[in-house]
């Protein structure tokens, strides 16, 4: 369809289509263990007629809404650690704010090309990286000062696990970089948070996954305001996306126990590769 054909489609088709796509992404993201934003931005940016500025704004709100609603149960179960999140979120939100400012000043072609490369790269990262349940580590001086440690009960393993983290400075630097990219591209960046917390800082995998969600909710709150003030949030795009992901995430959580996760994980990687290639070809002017 060309631009004229797309403009002729009745307006109400688009929010319904967005709701359906967001609902499906909400289900798939939970099953695959990735943040929805990393699917939402490339998929909606490639298949819908909206400018990437509005898609990235909606992507940030999409990730924010999903993580805000997931936060309370994760905190109550001890899977998300406030003590771990607070210093990392502070660095990440400053970087994300800067990233949002940079992202809204870049050309569409450059953004599409960079987004394509980033999404293809993330698909490979998800393919290669596996979580690790780390042995106990010795906290570095900064981790000890910030008391980056905790305890949670793992019902699957039927044991209570004490944990602490290390390599705090590297972790802070990683979250500055992750926050910046998230702000530029409107991603929640859970794909990067979890390995940074788990593989770099040695937080247990479940604590890394839970804390990643809480981190996104804090970090995206600052970048979201940049998009609001710049006029880059269109309610007709944002609200159906938020409602779709909320419902989809709940269904995904219900299906979690009966769905073969590796199959879903491969599906996500294929979708990301296709969406990444589509964004790349649009950015390079090969296939607009």
């Amino acid at each position, binding site marked *: 369809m060309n631009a004229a054909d797309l403009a002729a489609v009745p307006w109400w088709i688009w929010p319904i289509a967005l709701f359906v796509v967001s609902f499906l992404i909400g289900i798939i993201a939970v099953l695959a263990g990735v943040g929805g934003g990393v699917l939402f931005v490339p998929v909606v940016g490639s298949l819908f007629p*909206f400018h990437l500025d509005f898609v990235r704004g909606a992507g940030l709100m999409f990730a924010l*809404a999903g993580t805000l609603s997931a936060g309370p149960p994760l905190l109550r179960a001890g899977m998300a650690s406030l003590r771990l999140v607070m210093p990392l979120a502070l660095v990440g939100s400053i970087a994300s704010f800067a990233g949002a400012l940079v992202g809204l000043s870049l050309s569409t072609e450059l953004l599409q090309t960079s987004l394509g490369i980033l999404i293809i790269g993330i698909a490979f990262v998800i393919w290669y990286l596996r979580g690790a349940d780390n042995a106990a580590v010795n906290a570095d001086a900064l981790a000890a000062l910030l008391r980056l440690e905790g305890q949670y009960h793992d019902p699957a393993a039927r044991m209570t696990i004490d944990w602490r983290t290390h390599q705090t400075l590297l972790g802070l630097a990683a979250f500055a970089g992750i926050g910046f990219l998230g702000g530029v591209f409107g991603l929640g960046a859970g794909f990067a948070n979890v390995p940074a917390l788990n593989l770099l800082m040695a937080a247990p995998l479940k604590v890394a996954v839970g804390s990643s969600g809480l981190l996104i909710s804090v970090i995206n709150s600052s970048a979201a305001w940049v998009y609001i003030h710049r006029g880059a949030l269109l309610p007709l795009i944002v609200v159906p996306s938020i409602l779709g992901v909320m419902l989809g995430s709940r269904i995904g959580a219900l299906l979690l126990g009966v769905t073969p996760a590796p199959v879903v994980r491969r599906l996500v990687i294929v979708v990301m590769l296709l969406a990444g290639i589509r964004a790349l070809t649009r950015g390079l002017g090969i296939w607009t």
Partner: protein
Amino acid sequence: MDLIKSDRALRELYAGWLDIATKAGFVVSLIAFLLYVARVLPAYVALEELPRYWALPVHQFIQATGAPSGWAWLAELGYGDGLNLLAIGLLGLVTPLCYARLVPALIAERDWLQAALAVAQLAVLLAAASGLIGGSG
């Protein structure tokens, strides 16, 4: 109070506020959206006109439609799109609200370092929300 108990109490406090504020934000968003698409409230940019403009970069969209940016949308709450921006903004205020509740609890526990981090985070979030830095393009 030992670290584990103190952490649990803080998590419960944050989770309780997060839960209520998020649910309220979603209900407000849903109601505002229904008022908008059911045309109970007029739209600043007519719904059937939007497809002509939403493929434009945001600065061209604003030029073409006269849509508000910065804090100007607060003067347009009588329109469906303006009211929806308020609802979206409320979701953006959930985290600052939870942090604001956390600060006195951390101070009461004399956890000065975490309290300082929370205050700094609150300052960053409020600076972003104020639009004073990078608020207009």
